[in-house]
C-alpha cells in the first residue's frame, strides 16, 4: 500500500516533469522553486524519477516472499528515508522553499521503513 502511494506521488511528479510546460511562476501557485532548483536533479535526472524507481523496488520487495523480499524492503526504505531527509534539509536551509509532494513522500518513506523493520523483526532475521 505504501509503495503504491509512493508510486502515485513520484509518478505524478515524474509525469509533470516529462509532460509539463517550461518552468514558470504561476500566479497564485508559486514558482515551483524546489522542483526547479539544481538540488532537485542528480546526473541531470530529476529526483522524482529516482524516487519513482525506489518505490518500484519497494513494491517489488512487498511482492517478493521470504528473506530477499525483506532485504530489498529494508535497503530501499533506508535509502529512501536518508535521501528524503537530505532533500528536506536542502528545502529548509538551502533552497528555503518547501515542496508539499516531497514532504508527503518523506512521510511515506518513514512509514515504509517502519514496516520493513517490523518485517525483519517478526521474521527474526537478525537472530536466526
Amino acid at each position, binding site marked *: 500500500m505504501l509503495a503504491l502511494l509512493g508510486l502515485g506521488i513520484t509518478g505524478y511528479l515524474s509525469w509533470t516533469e516529462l509532460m509539463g510546460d517550461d518552468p*514558470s*511562476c504561476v*500566479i497564485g501557485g508559486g514558482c515551483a522553486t524546489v522542483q*526547479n532548483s539544481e538540488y532537485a536533479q542528480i546526473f541531470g535526472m530529476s529526483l522524482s524519477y529516482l524516487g519513482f524507481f525506489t518505490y518500484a523496488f519497494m513494491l517489488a520487495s512487498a511482492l517478493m516472499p521470504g528473506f530477499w523480499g525483506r532485504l530489498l524492503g529494508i535497503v530501499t526504505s533506508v*535509502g529512501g528515508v*536518508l535521501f528524503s531527509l537530505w532533500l528536506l534539509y536542502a528545502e529548509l536551509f538551502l533552497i528555503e522553499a518547501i515542496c508539499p509532494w516531497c514532504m508527503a513522500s518523506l512521510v511515506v518513506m518513514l512509514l515504509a521503513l517502519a514496516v520493513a523493520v517490523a518485517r525483519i523483526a517478526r521474521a527474526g532475521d537478525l537472530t536466526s
Partner: protein
Amino acid sequence: MSRKGWLIGGAVVVVIAVVVALVVISASGGDSSSDAPAGETVGVTKTLDLVEGIPQAEFTIGKAGAPVTVREFIDPQCPVCKSASETTVPAIIEGPVADGTAKLIIEPLTFIGSESSTGALAIAAAARQDRGVTFAEILLANQGKENSGWVSDALLTDIAGKIPGIDVATWESDRNGTEVGDAVFAASDRATANGVNATPTFVITGPGGKRVITGASEPATVLDAIEAVS
C-alpha cells in the same frame, strides 16, 4: 548475530554509503547564494551595453513603429524571469528589436509578494524617465531569494543612480506618486485581458497574428514566434 543479520547490516551500510555519495554529488551541483557579492549591484554594464543605441520610451524598448509587439509579463521576484532576462530577452533585444522588427514592452506584475510591488513601482518610476526596461533588467540581475528583503531602498536607489538618463531625485519622488501605482495596475489589467497566469509570459502580436509563450522557453522559440507574426 545471524548470517542473515550480517547480510542485512552490510546491505544497509552499502546503501548509506551510496546515499552519502549521491548527496555529495547533489550538493556540489546546487546553487550557492546570489551571484552578487554582498552589497554589490551587478549587471549594470552588461545591461547598458545591451540597450545602447536602441530607443526607449516608458516600459518599451525599440522603435515605436516596429510591426511586432512583444509584451513580457514579469514579476521582479520571479526566478524564471531572471533566467529569461539572461538568455531570451537579450536575444530579443539584439535581434528583432535592434533591427526594427519588434519592440519589447516590460509589464511588471506583483503576485509573488510585497517586495514585488516595491520592485514594480521602482521600475514604473524609471519608466517615467523612459528607462523602464533598463531598470527592470538590472533589477532582475540582482534578484535574491523571494521575499527575503533583497528589494531594498539601497539596491533600488543604487540601480537608479547607475542608469544614465535617470534623475534620482525625480525617480525617488515618482516612486511615491499615484501615477506609478496606476501604471502597475494597468499592467495587471493587461495580464488579465491576455489570460496571463504565469511569468514570464511573452505575448507577441503582429500583422501575422498572435502568439503566447509561457515559461522559460529557449530564445529560438520566442524568436521563431516573432518571425511567424511579423
